[in-house]
């Protein structure tokens, strides 16, 4: 069965190639830092299951130390000049969009069909991972297609991938690190403690105050944890079910749906939601790490107010 191990193998090989090419890149003054960083990431993908928990922890610590002590540079693989790119764009025109569109089309087709394929009665693809496997497959196809259609050198996809990866740098690892932090916080009971505090300071005597406390609490907790999914059980169990639903008879479907969306307003505001907020800033080479959050903040705050008003208006049928 095709499952995550194959996807991890592919990712591991890609990062191993980035590491090898980084080590050979004399233009980059910190080439061995980059090689060590992407190399350890490759080890995690290729052999993570055999390292043991402490081994993986030490690996994560080593990655953080390499990045935190400023050992990461930006590689400069040979690429095309802006002028060449203009010429190439004029030559190939709208065809250039084709491989870029292959990615969403294959992801869509794959996530709809892969689950149903079977070989001798056994599923061909792990149904739970259909989307991720489709994404990996689509990325591979698009890279090969682009290389063939536009006659790019054989090493181009790996070198160009490394160019972009170096631009992202340590931010590439942050979403996974934060997911691990979430697990440690859960073991330490951080969420539970915050929930207890939120319950203590929630006003219990007015319906509107309870609604506002739940929505604002969802957003604030999400800002602190980086993830609305971590906030939802704590705040809903602590405030929404006993107060908004239990005492003031709110419709649980409305309350929970809008409560979750209030959490999403928090996601738009927090650097802890790194893959949405910090990684794009790196990908787009923004000078201010928090520029995307600043651009989102007015929408997030207004939407939070809207959610409070909507819940108050829609959740109580009588």
């Amino acid at each position, binding site marked *: 069965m095709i499952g995550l191990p194959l996807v*991890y193998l592919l*990712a591991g090989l*890609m990062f191993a190639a980035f590491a090898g090419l980084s080590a050979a890149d004399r233009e980059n003054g910190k080439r061995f830092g980059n090689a060590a960083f992407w190399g350890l990431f490759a080890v*995690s993908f290729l052999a*993570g299951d055999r390292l043991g928990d*402490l*081994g*993986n922890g030490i*690996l*994560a610590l080593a990655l953080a130390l390499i990045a935190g002590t400023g050992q990461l540079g930006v590689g400069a693989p040979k690429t095309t000049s802006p002028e060449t*790119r203009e010429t*190439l764009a004029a030559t190939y*025109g709208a065809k250039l969009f084709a491989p870029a569109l292959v990615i*969403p089309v294959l992801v869509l087709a794959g*996530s709809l069909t892969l689950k149903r394929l079977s070989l001798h009665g056994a599923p061909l693809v792990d149904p739970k991972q259909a989307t991720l496997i489709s*994404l*990996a497959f689509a*990325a*591979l196809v*698009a*890279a090969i297609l*682009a290389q063939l259609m*536009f006659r790019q050198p054989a090493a*181009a996809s790996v*070198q*160009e991938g490394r160019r*972009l*990866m170096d631009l992202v740098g340590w931010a590439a690892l942050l*979403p*996974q690190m934060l*997911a*691990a932090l*979430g*697990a440690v*916080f859960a*073991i*330490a*009971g*951080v969420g539970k403690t915050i929930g207890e505090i939120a319950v203590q300071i929630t006003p219990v005597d007015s319906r509107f105050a309870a609604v506002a406390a739940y929505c604002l609490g969802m957003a604030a907790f999400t800002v602190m944890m980086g993830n*609305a999914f971590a906030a*939802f059980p704590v705040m809903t*169990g602590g405030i929404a079910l006993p107060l908004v639903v239990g005492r003031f008879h709110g419709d649980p479907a409305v309350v929970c749906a*809008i409560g979750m969306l209030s959490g*999403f307003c928090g996601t*738009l505001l927090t650097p802890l939601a790194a893959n*949405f*907020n910090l990684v*794009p800033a790196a*990908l787009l080479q*923004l*000078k*201010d790490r928090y*520029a995307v959050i600043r*651009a*989102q903040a*007015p*929408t997030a705050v207004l*939407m939070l107010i*809207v959610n409070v008003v*909507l819940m108050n208006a829609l959740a109580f049928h009588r």
Partner: protein
Amino acid sequence: MLTLLGVAVIVLGFALRFNPLLVVIAAALTSGVAAGLTPLEVLAAFGKAFNTNRYVSVAWLVLPAIGVLERAGLKEQARKTIQSLRAATPGRILLAYLALRQVAAALGLTQVAGQAQTVRPLLAPMAEAAAEPLDDETRQRVRAMSAATDNVGLFFGEDIFLAIGSILLIVGFLDQSGITVEPLALSVWALPTAIAAFLIHGGRLLLFDRGLTKAEVQE
């Protein structure tokens, strides 16, 4: 209560702009030790979760394809396409994208677009091209708004889809608490917020255009 010190480490570390990877590990150690674990136990728990969450980083597999396309002139082609459209402004382009992203996410197609595969090679160059001529500071604002629009469209679209993770989480949580709700009942109540998000962020995008025009006139 002491376990909350980990949250304080995160807030301070991010505010003072230390390297976030170090801040994350420091926060994990702080909260873990405060909860009575030894540092090695914390490191092992962290490593275990780091390993099981590798799928989060699989998305980077799209970079080689995007890189080759950039090498072959994809961004330049995206700019040309926009420059041939007279009516294109950054706000209008982002507004159209917001609508597409919300509708696609509402149909469950959350992975068809994203920051690496759509915003960097296509959306941001298009929005920039529509704003030209533009100074460096404005370019940064246009890029940040492009990334923000992708996030807003995704977040306030996906909850309309029945089988998305957040809907399933709500159904499961309520079920444990003895309350039965249908996924459809939840996704219906995501609609008012989705419409409001389109109006509010869309309105901001149109105002964004006005801000850009003013800046050009002042120069």
